[in-house]
């Protein structure tokens, strides 16, 4: 049976190199996905943040308390880094997907252009939410974290996660309906 994340983290605390590779292999892609959303589609920034997250996790592995769930611990570091990036640099940027190289250029085929347009719509919708709601929405919808894991990640009560999720979904729904109305006209 494969070792759990928590067992791997414990192995890392004891200096086992192999566990480090296993943890990166397990979590890198998913963490990149999370940070990509937190960075509003800026892939380069997401990569930097993911790298910094793993570095901090490695340096701070002594602070991890076995058998607490490892994934929320890792995502807490990532969330703090993402928050810190935007607050400390005071650069709540809005360009997001507009100048993102990950998306197709204007010369790209129709499919890629459509994908770009859809991504832009979603990013704009998510940007209308306050940060605390956006974090819960991203963790829940894109990362499939359980409500309890989200509560652990963000260090907030379970009830707060539920209410933020509910309000966030409601706001997104309202925005989607408003967009539908506009397109119908």
């Amino acid at each position: 049976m494969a070792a759990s994340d928590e067992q791997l983290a414990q192995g890392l605390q004891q200096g086992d190199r192999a566990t480090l590779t296993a943890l990166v292999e397990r979590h890198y892609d998913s963490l990149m996905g999370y940070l990509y959303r937190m960075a509003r589609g800026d892939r380069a920034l997401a990569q930097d943040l993911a790298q910094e997250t793993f570095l901090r996790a490695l340096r701070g592995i002594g602070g991890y308390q076995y058998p607490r769930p490892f994934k929320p611990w890792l995502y807490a570091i990532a969330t703090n880094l993402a928050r810190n990036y935007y607050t400390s640099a005071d650069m709540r940027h809005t360009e997001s997907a507009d100048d993102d190289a990950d998306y197709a250029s204007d010369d790209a085929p129709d499919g890629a252009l459509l994908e770009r347009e859809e991504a832009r719509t979603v990013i704009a919708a998510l940007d209308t939410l306050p940060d605390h709601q956006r974090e819960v929405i991203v963790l829940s919808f894109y990362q499939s974290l359980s409500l309890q894991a989200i509560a652990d990640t963000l260090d907030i009560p379970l009830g707060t996660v539920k209410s933020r999720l509910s309000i966030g979904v409601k706001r997104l729904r309202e925005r989607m309906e408003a967009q539908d109305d506009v397109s119908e006209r």
Partner: protein
Amino acid sequence: MYPNGKHSSGMQHPDPVPDEEHEGQEAVGAFLHQWRTPAPDPAAKAQLLELLAAEMPAIAPQPAANPTHRNPRLSLRWAWLILRSQTRLVHPATWAASGLVITLGAFVTLAFYQPAQSGTELPFVLVAPLVAACGVAFLYGLEADPTLELQLATPISPRVILLARLALLFGFNLVITLVCSIVLSLAQVQISLVPLIAAWLAPMTFLSALAFLLSVLFFDALASVLISLLLWVSITLRHFTELPPSFVPDLLLPNVYPAMLLSAPALVLLALIIAEREERWAGGVR
């Protein structure tokens, strides 16, 4: 992929939601997933693994069971190493300013001493607790210590780091004040050593503990210094002039000393609990 619905693992979420809300979540989920996840980048992952591998030797492995808990000699050595490392990290100005002002207080006391003065009436007794409290206030917080964030990422608990710093600085102030008290009692035969120590020991301990708690609470050394200063001035005014603020208890009365000495550890304990809660997640950045 939707919250409260069916996850990728195929497991139903334990929290059931009304159908209407569930439909709303499904619609929102479908909308959000129009923004696709970028394809994984194996090169970036490989680069990260190289970087982490290079970092690995610098990370001290944490033994499964801390042997220092069983071996008193190792415990002492461990404590010594932490104290020594923290000595270098407390700002040099903190040591210099504390020592200088307390010594100056002793000189002023000697220079202007009048035989009728006793215990709390000596400038030295009024200066020492405040200086100690101001020094302690600068022990915690990123402004006071830019390396704090880095230290919190080490295997040593934030509580131990803070306790080591408090012990160091309070111990330093205690020794300086004690030496000055001995010098004062030797220079002026009318000044008795034991009553003099009793006059500053309890207020110094209490005010330092309070300043420590305030700096942890506000994460701001300046706020802690200002509140401690305000409180100490109020206590002094209350004791000597009977002027308002009369709601401030007269903490310079000898019968209050035991209560002050006993409450100081409680304040420190409270500060440590709060500090640990604030830094619960290693790497937590404010």
